[in-house]
């Protein structure tokens, strides 16, 4: 443990640690190691940000959902380069309202915590000197409430689809004939159907649409019930397509013993179109004479025509 870290309170799991830190009024970050790596930032015991590769960040959701263009985002980042926070610069630019940002931050925190809860963490460390997040929830989310929401989400998805961790890794396949005849697919499901290609997982779709991973998984479970998706992930059909050059099958069986290496043998050159320097001109004349006498016979193959 470095001097930047504080003594972690004894905790048997991450929710217990967060509860203990909340009781202390901790301000700083908790870095989580393992498959569900990520970090949580707390201010005075409340969670203000969760960052994990498993779920889109607030910035990613703002950009991917087209709530803000990249051009405006670059301007906001430039404005925030000084003393202003990213949140203040974003609100100052007028692209997002304070209420909209509050909703988005709260949603991102719950979604990030859900994504991190899909696998068991291998360890964690606290850092009381970590800088505050650029865009964070105000005042923040109570860790106990966050744990309750995440637990309820895991239980709901387990009922509707199956184990959430396996669901998160599933490559979603659209149904061959989506929906019942005459039915209409709601726009939210249409966006997902346009993203589903048999290779993308729920996380990929969430990043693509700028939505939360849990929201996408919940919609996928509802879409499966509406028969908009295939109920099972299909097994790979046959071997991969060969791109090797094709050749006609030969009737003769290959030799049983070792095949000798090919040897170069002298071959008779085809009739040249011209007379290269150094060619045997007498032999060429003899061949042309034979060709001209054989052509009118009719039993011979027609020769190449010259112009």
């Amino acid at each position: 443990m470095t001097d930047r870290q504080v003594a972690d309170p004894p905790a048997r799991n991450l929710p217990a640690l967060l509860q203990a830190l909340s009781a202390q009024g901790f301000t700083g970050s908790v870095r989580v190691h393992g498959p569900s790596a990520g970090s949580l930032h707390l201010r005075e015991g409340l969670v203000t940000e969760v960052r994990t590769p498993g779920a889109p960040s607030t910035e990613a959701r703002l950009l991917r959902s087209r709530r803000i263009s990249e051009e405006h985002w670059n301007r906001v980042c430039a404005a925030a380069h000084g003393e202003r926070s990213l949140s203040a610069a974003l609100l100052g630019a007028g692209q997002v309202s304070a209420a909209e940002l509050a909703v988005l931050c709260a949603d991102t925190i719950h979604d990030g915590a859900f994504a991190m809860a899909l696998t068991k963490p291998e360890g964690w460390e606290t850092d009381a000197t970590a800088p505050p997040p650029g865009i964070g929830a105000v005042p923040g989310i109570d860790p106990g409430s966050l744990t309750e929401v995440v637990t309820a989400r895991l239980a709901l998805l387990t009922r509707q689809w199956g184990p959430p961790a396996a669901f998160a890794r599933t490559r979603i396949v659209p149904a061959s004939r989506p929906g019942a005849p005459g039915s209409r697919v709601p726009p939210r499901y249409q966006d997902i159907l346009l993203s589903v290609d048999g290779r993308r997982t729920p996380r990929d779709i969430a990043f693509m649409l700028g939505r939360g991973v849990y929201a996408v998984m919940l919609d996928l479970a509802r879409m499966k019930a509406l028969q908009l998706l295939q109920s099972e992930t299909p097994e790979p059909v046959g071997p991969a397509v060969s791109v090797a050059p094709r050749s006609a099958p030969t009737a003769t069986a290959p030799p049983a013993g070792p095949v000798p290496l090919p040897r170069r043998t002298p071959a008779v050159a085809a009739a040249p179109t011209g007379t290269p320097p150094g060619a045997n001109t007498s032999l060429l004349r003899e061949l042309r004479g034979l060709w001209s006498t054989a052509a009118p016979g009719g039993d011979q193959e027609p020769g190449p025509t010259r112009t």
Partner: protein
Amino acid sequence: MSEAEGKQVNAVEVALAGMLGSPGLVGVALLDGTTGLLHASAGQTGAIGPGADLADLAALVTDRLGTAGAEGELESFVVTTTHWHHVMQAVPQRGGGLLLCAVLDRASTNLALALRDMAEHARLVLA
């Protein structure tokens, strides 16, 4: 962000608190239309119900309307009980759906006016 009596509250809570002056409105909440995550509430929140159940109900109505061949997007729906009107109003928002859910006292509510007010509240709640 704003400060109220020394405690930080988020901007949505301030917006919802302002709606409580509407005639007959006893409780209001803003929640995620897909997940049911409760973002803020004001008034008698117990009468509104769990967010996940409300989101599930909204999804059920949307899905069944789609199955029946209805065009367009869901804007609002009302469930009326003996004493209450439960109004769920979609909030126009880029990149995701929110629901503004309200409980109104049936005896003191003109439903047509209440629906017009709810649509206006939904338009302004994130402004």
